[in-house]
């Protein structure tokens, strides 16, 4: 029952785990940037309506409702066979997570834009603004404040979800953890250490997101 802890194994393996942290951060950053751009296009397509809007709806619902692990495995295994394009595991993972996160991000943008009273759109158009001017000068600046806090939540979620990329062999933190745990025969210390590293990295981020929610609270 009494377990003999060997924390020195964790200390010795720390450099390898931190190498994984680097990939975790890199994958999260690239995915988030790509998802912010793709999500905006999807949101605008959905608001515009028509066949493109319908396509955007299917995109959003499909990727919001399918498990991330499923999409990660699908992009890694199926995409090369169907298209003939082979991506590295890291790039496949980033593509898969981008598909997933952009669907959620698109809904955040859409909610941010459509929550601005329609009177403002009508007023802007009545003043002779073009659609593009309306978006750039009236709608988007206000929408930004409404979308920043929920985007922060999705960022923290994404940061944790990059651990799924371990399944397709991307050497991020979780993958390195499994590698070291097998090498050292010390799964207890290593996996506890991996969990603590994630906690130390992600918890301050969620505190930051809580701050954003308070800071950008919209008063109506």
């Amino acid at each position, binding site marked *: *029952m009494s*377990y003999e802890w060997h924390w020195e194994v964790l200390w010795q393996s720390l450099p390898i785990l931190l190498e994984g942290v680097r990939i975790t951060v890199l994958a999260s950053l690239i995915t988030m940037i790509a998802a912010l751009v793709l999500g905006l296009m999807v949101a605008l397509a959905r608001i515009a309506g028509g066949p493109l809007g319908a396509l955007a709806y299917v995109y959003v*619902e*499909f990727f*919001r*409702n*399918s*498990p*991330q*692990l*499923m*999409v990660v*495995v*699908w992009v890694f*295994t*199926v995409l090369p*066979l*169907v*298209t*003939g394009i082979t991506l590295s595991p890291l790039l496949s993972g980033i593509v898969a997570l981008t598909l997933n996160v952009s669907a959620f991000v698109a809904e955040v943008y859409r909610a941010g834009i459509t929550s601005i009273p329609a009177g403002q759109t009508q007023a802007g158009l009545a003043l002779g603004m073009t659609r593009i001017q309306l978006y750039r000068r009236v709608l988007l600046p206000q929408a930004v404040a409404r979308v920043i806090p929920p985007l922060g939540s999705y960022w*923290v979620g994404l940061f*944790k*979800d990059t*651990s*799924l990329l*371990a*399944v397709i062999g991307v050497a991020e933190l*979780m993958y390195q*953890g*499994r590698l070291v*745990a097998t090498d050292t025969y010390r*799964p*207890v210390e290593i*996996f*506890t250490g*991996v*969990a603590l590293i*994630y*906690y130390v990295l*992600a*918890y301050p981020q*969620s505190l930051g997101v809580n701050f954003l929610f308070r800071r950008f609270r919209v008063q109506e």
Partner: protein
Amino acid sequence: MSSTAYTWHFEAFYRHLPFLLEGIRNTALVSVLAILVGSVVGLVAAVIRLYGPRPLRWLVAFYVDFVRSTPLLVQLVWVFFALPILVDRSLPPLAAGVLTLGVYAGGYLAEIFRAGILAIPSGQRHAALALGMTGRQVLGRIILPQAVVRMLPPVASTFISLVKDSSLVSVISVAELMWASQSLVGFTMRPVEVLTGTAFLYVALTYPLSLLAGILRKRYLAV
């Protein structure tokens, strides 16, 4: 592009559909058990965090923050590979999966329940206490019946997330849909059709649930 054109063989998927449906059964089982475990854990955690003694409150706050700040996959691997060594007792994959998903969801549900309870005006609690009700009676007869309605939409969303996240227990070889799909890939050598078909099976499972959650949200949150 014609040289890379792929010839689809979806019959590999259709022929083995019963095998995948068996996986769906386990996906449903794991998700339902996990939401039940999560609801109990979450309710206890929410009540302690609101009304419990101070050190216990801190402990529960740490639990909630910890499960929400670490990846589910890490928790799952920890429970399956590290916990058995610590307690010197082996844990079957299904039990480990349900336990992890339940405790994970419990962290999210605790916050949902807490917010739901806090949304009931405190005057009602004071009034009930003034009428001589015990703390337990106030919670069971006054607060929770009203709070449950507000909690329904976010609980439904949590359940949908659990159905999707239950795919992770394939990593510890619980025979749910994701696991069934991957073993079928090995058996049929048709990853394209099997994985694509499975993705649609998941969406067929979760999309109606999302629509339902949307209806609940309109009905109960627009009060």
